[in-house]
């Protein structure tokens, strides 16, 4: 790269993005970003631009791309409403520690603060939901800021970084060195922190003494790329493993030492293991309230170890007995030489008993079940697909019935619980991994929140299997109303749903209707065999099925409801925890 050729800010942006290895920009044009869009034409690069149909879609696509590949993608939108439309996507990425670079246009700098056309103070509006953000004050700052933004977004605990770019900054001349130095003396990734030897010794000792140890594995292990080291350690010491929903795939769920995922709708045996273990080693999870139930009652009987790269997570929800700050891979590597085979035979036998006794299950008789459809996709795709979910009942069942053996293969909005995430995130994932099978499971509620991106999927002929698990209800809320509010259904009936197959066809997308359990195998197979772009499978499922196991929010894990309560059984108390 020659240092000081004549260019404008927009051209500098494209050159800097290319230098960062950016493959895709997902975005939507508008007045204040015209100079950057123009630079995409005047500055040849390998970056591909994807024009979405709504800015929220762009943010979720970049998110899905990043979750599927581990690499950051770029969102590029205009000022004002363009920028405010991406906030949900930024917040979703922030909650789940997903790297993302979001470029927003801004009014010309001399109009900022004067209520200019399409002006929004996006820098301040997004402050609580970004890892960091910038408002560009001079075109010559662009190379440094972009470099810092990528570094911050992708290192340590990843997250979204927003760069707000006034139009005169992208249009004006840029004369600074493209390889400007970063100036972020306050930023510590903790990636290269020396692992505290005393903490490692304490963890090793706790493991050696434990009769019933349990590993709780979070998303952090995947971000760190520690899955192989983890598996080697687990097999060496023979410790059972449960993961969070976002940790699905950090340890193979089909492994004999796996207990699947835990929490509100996780496996009964993982939750029972939490209640019975005497040592819990959490690597890379933030003790989210979905897995704690009642934090004050959580895992009281056990010694708790918390390993995390983010010091502010230690003691936030649970005060651990032992903690260790560092990158998961570094900590696992430091720990491995100090631990040997543990005497866990009895414990594993007990857990196996629970696995046999409390499997995830559903009835194949009666109306069509979401679980049946998901299970068939699991079987016919050999469990190898990238599964992307939306949010709600189907998300929980996708977690239960589509087992995940590899990292970055189960993409779901965990922390934020963003309905509408599924389809655009699946599109992003398919762009990032064009050779892999992508299955998107959505409910009829969430699907309709971002269905306009069907156009994007169709335009690029992305072979995504879009499975709409259609119960004509906002099922998860309806389930709460049935269980805890005397079945008073309020604001959950999605009457007026369109014919999703006709809708797909209007976009030029192949549609399938699936209504009977007897047709599941045939139609799932036909959908998987369809190879000319995306296809949509509208599954008319039973309207009032409920997800179990279930730990009512705010209740201790011991209060887990393993199976549907029998008719006429004691009324359940309203949950006290959040949502």
């Amino acid at each position, binding site marked *: 790269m020659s240092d000081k050729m004549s260019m404008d800010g927009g051209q500098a942006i494209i050159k800097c993005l290319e230098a960062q290895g950016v493959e895709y920009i997902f975005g939507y044009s508008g007045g204040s970003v015209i100079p950057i869009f123009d630079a995409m034409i005047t500055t040849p690069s390998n970056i591909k631009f994807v024009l979405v149909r709504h800015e929220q879609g762009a943010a979720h696509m970049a998110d899905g791309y990043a979750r599927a590949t581990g690499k950051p993608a770029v969102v590029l939108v205009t000022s004002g409403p363009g920028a405010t439309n991406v906030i949900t996507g930024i917040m979703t990425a922030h909650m789940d520690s997903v790297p993302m670079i979001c470029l927003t246009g801004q009014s010309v700098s001399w109009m900022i603060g004067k209520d200019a056309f399409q002006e929004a103070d996006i*820098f*301040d509006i997004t*402050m*609580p939901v970004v*890892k*960091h*953000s910038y*408002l560009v*004050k001079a075109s010559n700052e662009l190379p440094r800021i972009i470099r810092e933004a990528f570094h*911050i977004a992708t290192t340590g605990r990843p997250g979204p970084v927003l760069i707000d770019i006034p139009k005169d900054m992208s249009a004006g001349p840029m004369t600074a060195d493209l390889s400007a130095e970063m*100036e*972020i*003396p*306050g*930023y510590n990734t903790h990636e290269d922190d020396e692992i505290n030897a005393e903490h490692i010794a304490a963890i090793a000792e706790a493991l050696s003494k434990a009769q019933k140890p349990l590993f709780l594995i979070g998303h952090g292990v995947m971000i760190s790329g520690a899955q192989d080291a983890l598996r080697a350690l687990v097999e060496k010491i023979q410790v059972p493993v449960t993961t969070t929903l976002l940790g699905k795939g950090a340890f193979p769920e089909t492994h004999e030492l796996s207990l699947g995922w835990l929490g509100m709708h996780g496996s009964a045996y993982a939750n029972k293991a939490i209640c019975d273990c005497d040592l819990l080693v959490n690597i890379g999870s933030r003790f989210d309230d979905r897995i704690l139930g009642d934090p004050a009652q959580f895992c009281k009987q056990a010694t708790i170890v918390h390993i995390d790269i*983010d*010091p*502010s997570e*230690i*003691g*936030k929800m649970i005060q651990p007995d032992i903690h260790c700050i560092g990158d998961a891979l570094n900590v696992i590597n430091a720990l491995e030489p100090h631990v040997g085979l543990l005497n866990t035979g009895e414990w594993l036998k007990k857990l196996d008993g629970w696995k046999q006794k409390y499997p995830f299950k559903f009835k194949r008789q009666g109306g069509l079940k979401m679980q049946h459809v998901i299970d068939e996709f699991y079987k016919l795709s050999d469990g190898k697909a990238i599964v992307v979910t939306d949010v709600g009942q189907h998300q929980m069942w996708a977690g239960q019935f589509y087992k995940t053996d590899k990292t970055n293969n189960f993409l779901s909005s965990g922390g934020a619980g963003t309905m509408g995430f599924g389809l655009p995130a699946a599109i992003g994932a398919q762009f990032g991994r064009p050779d892999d099978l992508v299955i998107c499971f959505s409910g009829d509620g969430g699907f309709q929140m971002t269905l306009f991106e069907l156009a994007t999927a169709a335009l690029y002929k992305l072979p995504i299997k879009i499975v709409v698990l259609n119960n004509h209800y906002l099922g998860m809320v309806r389930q709460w109303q049935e269980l805890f509010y005397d079945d008073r259904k309020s604001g959950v009936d999605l009457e007026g749903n369109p014919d999703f197959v006709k809708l797909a066809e209007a976009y030029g997308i192949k549609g399938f209707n699936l209504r009977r359990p007897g047709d599941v195998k045939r139609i799932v197979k036909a959908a998987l065999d369809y190879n000319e772009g995306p296809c949509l499978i509208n599954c008319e499922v039973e309207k009032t099925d409920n997800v179990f196991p279930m730990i009512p929010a705010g209740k201790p894990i011991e209060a887990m409801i393993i199976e549907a309560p029998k008719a006429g059984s004691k009324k359940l108390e309203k949950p006290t925890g959040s949502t």
Partner: protein
Amino acid sequence: MINNKTIHTLSVYVSNKPGVLARIAQTFSRRGYNIESLVVSTAIDGHFSRMTIGVSGAEEGLDQIIKQVAKLIDVLHCTDHTFDDAVVKEMGLIKIAVGSDGRGEALQIAEHFGCKTVDLTDESIMVQVIGDPDKIDALMGMLQKFRIIEIVRTGKVLMSRGAEIT
């Protein structure tokens, strides 16, 4: 003072970048902590600023907030000096309504507290006081017998003793 909770004194060393104060303020307010006082000034190296923040709120959880502040990209460090033997000073300006009747007594109190009289009229006196916050509280108490027209306090600034950096 507020809810009988300790006001913690934090010293925060930050990059002098736009938005850094807003980020720190948000971190406190989101978790229900109240900023009681705030002093910001440029450090020796103009690229950095020093903030001294007085903050009140639940004792448990404050550690967590300090970690969250320290985590902000533009924050180099955030230290709680509440229980350190550091030098803590604050300045206050107090304006009281007093005519010829009480002026002598008012000036005597002010002198006792080492105040400087910075404005004097037929109906009022303005005094300047410098010291630790308790001293300013005590002076205010003594001056209650007059009608206090207004009080402006700078908020406390803090520096570690000895050769150590704050």
